[in-house]
């Protein structure tokens, strides 16, 4: 009885009508220039990813990625699983340094500073960016200490400052009401969704210039998701947000710009409204409407 439904889940082969030459070219290893809309080019970019290549050992994962990320806007990265979204995100604050096999070429600039330049202070760089990971990763400490971690490592000791930052960050992450009575309990006692919002609170507590979010809502229920989305919308303007998501609705709801990636390359990058209603490329439309991927 279930068999027909089961069969439908088996991936369709790439000869579906939506697949075009561009994706086939990427799949065959060619570097295809991205279609970047003029609106994006017109913006003032805070981060500029330029001809960026990245390999894990011998395996190249990012190919000549060009991606200007506008200041004070929310930019979403979408694309099929394994296309390198998380890798790109991690490249921005050099979290890939923690993996020994990584080698990069090309550059990423944060305003005028070269992220991969010689003599760059990686610690300072990371303090300018907050990061929320795909999998929630609270520290085995109290909720309060988790939120103010970035301030602590910066040497902040003033209790009043810490408390007020803690409250604001938790409110921002829509968590305050749930945890305000147990700030000193271990963060490991929270539910998965709460933990993820705690990680968001931790990221925004340090007042970063850039917020990097890797599928922040994949473990959240719809209400929490809404709250996080409200938060992102609220942050827009002051913060530059780069968010990876598999949820098209979410991308369309929160982001100003959206980049569609495929196998380590950016295919199309433009204002979200344009991309979701009237993309330049047929491939993008196919992906967004769920006809492939």
């Amino acid at each position, binding site marked *: 009885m279930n068999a027909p439904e089961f069969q439908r889940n088996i991936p369709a082969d790439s000869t579906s009508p939506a697949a075009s030459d561009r994706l086939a070219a990427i799949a065959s290893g060619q570097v295809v220039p991205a279609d970047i809309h003029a609106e994006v080019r017109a913006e003032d970019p805070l981060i500029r990813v330029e001809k960026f290549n990245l390999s894990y050992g011998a395996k190249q994962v990012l190919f000549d990625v060009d991606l200007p990320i506008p200041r004070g806007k929310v930019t979403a990265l979408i694309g099929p699983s394994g296309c390198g979204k998380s890798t790109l995100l991690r490249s921005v604050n050099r979290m890939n340094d923690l993996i020994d096999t990584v080698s990069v070429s090309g550059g990423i600039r944060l305003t005028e500073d070269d992220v991969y330049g*010689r003599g760059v202070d990686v610690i*300072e760089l*990371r303090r300018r960016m907050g990061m929320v990971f795909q999998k929630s990763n609270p520290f085995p400490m109290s909720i309060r200490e988790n939120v103010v*971690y970035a301030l602590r490592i910066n040497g902040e000791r003033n209790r009043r400052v810490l408390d007020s930052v803690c409250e604001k960050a938790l409110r921002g992450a829509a968590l305050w009401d749930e945890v305000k009575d147990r700030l000193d309990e271990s963060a490991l006692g929270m539910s998965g969704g709460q933990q993820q919002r705690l990680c968001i609170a931790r990221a925004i507590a340090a007042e970063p210039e850039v917020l990097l979010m890797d599928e922040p809502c994949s473990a959240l229920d719809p209400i929490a998701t809404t709250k996080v989305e409200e938060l992102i919308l609220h942050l827009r303007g002051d913060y530059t947000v780069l968010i990876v998501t598999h949820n098209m609705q979410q991308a369309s709801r929160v982001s100003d710009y959206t980049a569609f990636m495929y196998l380590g390359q950016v295919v199309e990058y433009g204002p979200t409204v344009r991309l979701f209603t009237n993309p330049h490329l047929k491939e993008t439309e196919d992906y967004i409407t769920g006809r492939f991927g």
Partner: protein
Amino acid sequence: MSDQQTDESRQSYTGMKFSRKPAMRVLLADRWAGRIITASGIGGILAVSLVGLFLLWVALPLLLPTHVERQAVLPAPSAGTSEAHVLAQALDGYGSMAWSLMSDGRVVVQEMAAGRILEEVSVVGQAPLTSNSSAGNKGVALGFADGTVVLADFAFKLEFLTEADVPDEIKALAPGQSRPWRQGVIARTPEGQLRRQRFALEAQEPVAISDTAVVKVDVTSTGSGYVLAAVDASGTFLYRKLKVRTNMLTGQKHLSSKGSSAQLGEFGLKDPGALAGLKLNDTGREIVLVSRSGRAILLVEYDGEMLLQGTSSLLEGEAVGEARVTAVGYLAGNVSLAVGDSKGRIAIWFPVAGTDGKPSRLVRAHVLEPGPAAVTALAGSGRSRMLAAGFADGTVKVYNVTAERVLGVTDSGGGSVADLAVAPREDRILVGGETAVALLALEAPYGEVSLHTLLGKVWYEGYAGPTYVWQSSSASDSFEPKMSLVPLISGTLKATFYSLLFGLPLAILAALYTSEFLPREQRGRIKPVIEIMASLPSVVLGFLAALVIAPLVEQVAVQVIAVLVLTPACVLLSAHLWQLLPRETAARLEQWRPVAVLLSMALGCAVSWQLGPIFERTLFGGDLKSWLDGQIGSGTPGWVVLLLPLAGMAVGWLNLVYGDGLIRGVGSAWTHRSVALLDLGRFLVSALATVALALFVGWLLDSVGWDPRGSVLGTYVQRNALVVGIAMGFAIIPLIYSISEDALVSVPDHLRAASMGAGATPWQTAVRVVIPPAMSGLFSAAMIGIGRAVGETMIVLMAAGNTPIMDLNIFNGFRTLSANLAVELPEAVKDSTHYRVLFLAALTLFAMTFVLNTAAEGVRLHFRSKTKRL
């Protein structure tokens, strides 16, 4: 039923059908695996507890109760002449016969089965017997009313007879049986031989020493003859050295005497009748006179003259006026004096050499549990610290003096006790009572051990005061075994402490370095190398320590101390200098940083090497060893060395609280270079402050009068705790390193990512995020390291000098429980006290490691429950 049908009707995706029921094979394998695992688990627990149980089994008899029991009451040898009472007695080695010297001059030999008198010999010459020395292995001196003394040998002679020599009724004796025969006792040994024992008396010719009756006499034999001490009725103290001359022609022996005399009045004693005892020690050069009123006079012979060493009052306490000394006896070795009084109290006294040229004095080292009536007889055993005491009401109490323990008490049933004799094997006691002779059976094989002797301070013979001593054996028979486990336990703890001090920080920091700061690939290469170190046999480390490290450290002790201080200082300095490099250059040179660290360590060593002699000259008066001996210099430099680490920590903490704010405050406004300069300046100031703080506190402590020499520092011994610390540190480093590295690596990477993503440095990440969840693992690593150090044998055996000394001195040796077992167990006689105490030491060791491991596991679980949801 219906389930099966739907199963069959369901479409198969893979085209295969599988049974839902697990196969029989799987079930069987599962069941067997379960059983085997359970069995081996229980087996493991059993094996461990069996080891503990076995140790306990061997050690436990030490604590078994001891007792004395009256075996037989025999007729008194006075037989008829009711006036006579027993003066001295002795039992033979088999407990089958005894002689008793009676006050009327007869020696009565009795067999011990029924008390039949076998023989009577008279020792009386022209005048009645007036005094005698107690029975011992040095012969008996008999003093007579005419002023003569006879030296006599009272012995039991042993001979083996053939079957032809004896009548049929003797031939019929079964092995083990015995019976009186012809003035002796004949017995068939378990091997079937016939063994006859006879009493034999051999008396020397009388020696005239006085004109009046001899009222007190004692004798001892020395290499060249005899020494005699006596007091006569006129109150003269007589001291004679007797030489035995054998006439070449007749073979007769002849005694020549020379010596000196003194009046008792010179020593403050009025009346010879007031003397309770006169005792001569084994060298024949020290005499103790004890008066009934409790005054003891210690005399020493020097060049033929008697010198008064001192007097003491033996009766102390509230009843001085009323009590009288009623019995005096020697313990084995003839040094310790047992003194009993009319109130039933017994105390043990012995002379202690005076310090600073003061004469030796008698000290009361032990007070034994008093008896119910006046003490009438005291007799020590010939081979241990056992003392038998007889009381006026017939009670006999047996003590072990070292342990101050009552081994047994019984009523002898023969009235007031006149004399006592402990059998050579300590299995029987002969009690000469007023009306009867009693034979007591004694069972106290481990009487010298009590909880107090094992763990408490005991005042051993000849020591200035109660102490903890381990000295289990000696060449002499009358040796007092000193079996305190405390010096061994303290040695074990000392070895553990110093090796941890050296090994624990190194191992944990190394683990932190490889797990947090090294690329995964390099870590994979380094870890096995360090783990191979663990397979280095400890005997190799031991002999390296004893033959290479110990002599080397002895030569360059100051340099070694300087290395401990200057190397970390050099590394810190070079780190601050590194900060001065422009960022670009620093980033380019990043890969050379470990090399720079190594170079700065080498620099630290070189500087220490160069400065060592200068330090020795300026701080320790040019010679560390005589400084350590306390001969030169003040204690301040020692304090400085000891306090530097603490001062460093204090200054570092102050820096953390106040200094960091300073750097942060200017951080954004200043250039990188100026901030680095500021930091360097701060470091230099801190270093100076550290030295100044240590110097100040050290000076303060020294001026208060505390000198580190004598506690943590002290006389330098080549094989010492520092050497063991280094060698054993090497033994425990791989162990601690390996376990703590595993613990650190097992902290999930996403925590590191979160911390680094928030902008933490690797060090901050390690301290704040990685170490807390790894704490349980680090803790068990440390505990397992401690367990290894506690049980380690070869290294301490070879490098610790094995002197069972108890002190904190890092430059002194020690002996651990384990090394003690290795040294002494092969030589201990099976089932002897020593043997069982060694097993008790093994049990202690076992308990220590067991408790340590259990505590470690408990703490580990506690930590883990806090972080288990990672």
